């Protein structure tokens, strides 16, 4: 149905795509994988008319197409759901869905029709819980994503739906819901191009896999006939054997560095936990269970209102990030671009931000730190917005290492990070623990959480509901997180 052949694209002389070809069948789910910066998003933007290709052709249903604006691609039935949301938080669902093609009656926008049609589309997808008149900003992230999909479907008779990392902001159970939605769409004959860094999803969903590396197509595989290892090998160009570094030996776990007793705030209750030197503690939970609230409370960003906490032997219930930092706590936030980095500033300025902001904390030897996190950049003066996601995350980690913390909190540390960088981050986290830091990881990717943690705490409804030992089964975690019943998370990876 769709064929892209020999597509090339350069930015300012830098070649990003080298003659990439791709084809998609009706009703097929086709996965596109590759490292950060491999060119996946760029290829899709070419397809969706956002970029004009330097070379190459796009053929849809046998006719050659050249799009110079996204609207033309949409009209032809190609819809792209961006890696980043393109929704207006202060407008209603219906207004967002019909943005750019509002139905008009007698010169005026027909709100009724718009809302009715949106409700119909939502109903078709079984998403009846969303009010077309609700403000998008007040919806949960998962629902916002549904709105994005509905928006794409409303655009036209969609033939091809491109989804660029749709699961990145979702928690596991929501991923299941998205799966169902995607399958329904495919069953209707829509061809789906699916980009993800989570191989498990790729194997769950897709029929075929195309692997990009450095702007080249390096493999075209049939899912049923390949294995994750083969895909990874194609992506990184080498063998990545063990996904996770070895866990801590019992002897490596030392003193408690952070203890919390009976703490809480408006979103958390009865929190009690201990983080020990040398240990990686994982926190599992469903979306909205309070994991982010927990780490933000520990870090003083949304402080505990009551309770006791000691850090490295001293009593400290941080009321602001500054106090937490002085106490030796660091937080790698889940929203790296908005909360972790000053994007227009250089690598160096970002790495030194904490040290400069909080007098008396940390080191100024940036070079070693950047080597330590294995940053790949064009130099310390490069603005971080030009770095790939994985490298941006490394800068964030370097920033905290510069502050010489005792306790490191990670909220979704590998979200949107490719396999190569991911395993580098995993190795680094383990090394840091080994050097005597206490580490806490929040992750919505259960395999990662289980693979990394020496111990897993499970949260539900703003409180800790249980603790599981290293290597616990995913089912056990989900059971605790959802309160006994087996979670809606379908099909664990084989």
């Amino acid at each position, binding site marked *: 149905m769709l064929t892209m052949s020999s597509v090339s694209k350069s*930015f*300012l002389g830098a070649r990003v795509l080298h003659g990439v070809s791709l084809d998609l069948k009706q009703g097929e789910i086709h996965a596109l994988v590759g490292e*950060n*910066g491999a060119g996946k998003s760029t290829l899709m933007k070419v397809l969706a008319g956002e970029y004009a290709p330097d070379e190459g052709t796009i053929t849809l249903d046998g006719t050659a197409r050249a799009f110079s604006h996204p609207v033309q691609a949409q009209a032809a039935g190609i819809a792209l759901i961006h*890696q*980043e949301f393109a929704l207006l938080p202060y407008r209603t669902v219906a207004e967002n869905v019909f943005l750019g093609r509002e139905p008009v009656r007698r010169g005026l926008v027909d709100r009724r029709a718009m809302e009715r049609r949106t409700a119909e589309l939502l109903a078709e997808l079984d998403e009846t819980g969303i009010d077309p008149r609700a403000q998008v900003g007040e919806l949960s992230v998962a629902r916002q994503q549904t709105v994005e999909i509905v928006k794409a479907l409303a655009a036209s008779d969609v033939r091809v739906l491109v989804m660029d*990392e749709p699961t*990145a*902001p979702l928690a596991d159970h929501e991923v299941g819901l998205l799966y169902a939605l995607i399958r329904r769409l495919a069953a209707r004959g829509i061809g789906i191009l699916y980009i993800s*860094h989570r191989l498990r999803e790729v194997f769950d969903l897709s029929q075929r896999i195309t692997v990009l590396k450095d702007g080249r197509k390096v493999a075209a595989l049939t899912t049923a006939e390949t294995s994750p290892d083969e895909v990874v090998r194609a992506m990184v160009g080498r063998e990545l054997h063990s996904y996770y570094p070895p866990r801590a030996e019992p002897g490596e776990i030392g003193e408690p560095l952070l203890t919390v007793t009976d703490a809480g705030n408006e979103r958390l209750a009865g929190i009690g936990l201990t983080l020990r030197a040398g240990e990686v503690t994982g926190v599992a939970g469903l979306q909205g269970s309070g994991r982010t609230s927990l780490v933000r409370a520990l*870090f003083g*960003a949304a402080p505990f209102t009551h309770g006791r906490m000691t850090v490295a032997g001293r009593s400290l219930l941080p009321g602001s*990030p*500054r106090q937490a*930092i002085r106490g030796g706590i660091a*937080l790698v*936030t*889940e*929203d*790296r*671009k*908005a*909360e*972790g*980095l*000053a*994007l*227009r*500033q250089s690598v160096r*300025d*970002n790495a*030194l*931000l*904490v040290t*400069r*902001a*909080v007098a008396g*904390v940390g080191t100024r030897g940036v070079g070693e730190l*950047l*080597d330590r996190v*294995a*940053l*790949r*950049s064009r*130099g*310390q*003066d490069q603005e971080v*917005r*030009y*770095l*790939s*996601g*994985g490298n*941006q*995350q490394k800068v964030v980690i370097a920033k905290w290492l510069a502050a010489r913390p005792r306790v490191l909190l990670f909220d*979704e540390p590998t*979200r*949107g*990070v*490719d396999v190569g960088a991911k395993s580098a981050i995993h190795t680094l986290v383990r090394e840091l623990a080994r050097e005597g830091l206490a580490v806490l990881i929040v992750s919505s990717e259960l395999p990662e959480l289980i693979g990394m943690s020496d111990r897993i705490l499970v949260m539900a409804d703003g409180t800790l509901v249980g603790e599981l030992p290293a290597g616990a089964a995913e089912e056990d975690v989900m059971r605790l997180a959802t309160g006994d019943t087996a979670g809606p998370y379908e099909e664990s990876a084989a």
Partner: protein
Amino acid sequence: MSEATTTNPAVRAFRRLGTGAPVYALLVVLLAALALTDPGFYEPDSFLAFVKRAAPLVILAAGQYLVIVSGGFDLSVGAVVTAGVVAGAEFYGSYPDAPWLLVTVGLLVAGAVVGLANGLITTRLRVPSFITTLGMMLILEGAVFYWTGGSPKGVLPQSFREFGRGTAGGWLPWAVPACVVVGAAAVWLMRSDFGRTLVATGDSERAAALAGVRVPRVRTLAFVLSGAAAALAAVLVAGFSGVSAQAGRGLEFEAITAVVLGGVLLGGGRGSVVAAMAGAFSLQALFTLLNLQGVSGALESTVQGVIVIAAVGLGATGRPGLNRLRRHRSQPSGGTS
């Protein structure tokens, strides 16, 4: 892997020039045009006189830069200048023998207090600084004229005016070293930890706050410094030309224009203070040139408007890379989050 540590000094120097490059070109062109128009322009006296005239605007631009780069606006600086001049005269009306240093320092402190109010209202009450400082402009103008009943009662003595009017050693106008000192201080400040955190705050307030930056304090301090800079400009203006009830009229717009000419991003997070001050010099050079060229008196402002738009427009479109990024603001690569 260790590419990160290799940094070419030449590349670095060029980058530093980076965002400001168009303004330096503009300044060179204007200065060359001045030389052609008035061959005597580069005689020491005449050039120093030019710098002296530019000094208040340069100092205002340096202060304004601090506020803009941290993500705000300061529309109150013109009113601070007017209020400073009038209040100084009013004060001398009551205490004709007050030592000049005391009055100068008093004005600087008062300017800083105005900045403090701007900063606290903006950061604590979360009023956009455009509105805060617009309101402050009304308040200051209203209050100072209300207080003085429309015109100040005193005369500014020579001792006070010496700073803006007189020369050191008979040839160097005091305003020139003042300007140099402010410039050097601003450069030093921007290279200091404070300066870096200030820019980072303008870039991403949330990221800065989570990195332990006391965002309200940092931003407030930028307003305080801008207020003090405006007060210093007031002292220079008062010295240069004496009491006037409209000493600072329009200076806020001139200062902002200068900063934008210098390639500083309105909204914060990018731009150099040196370029901002170069923007002020360019603007003053433009005024001088228009005056010398004798463009039909009234059309002067038309020419000025066209040149400013053109300079900023060319600066923006002349850098394709930046421009595209500004339009798309998309992150070229990288993950989601």
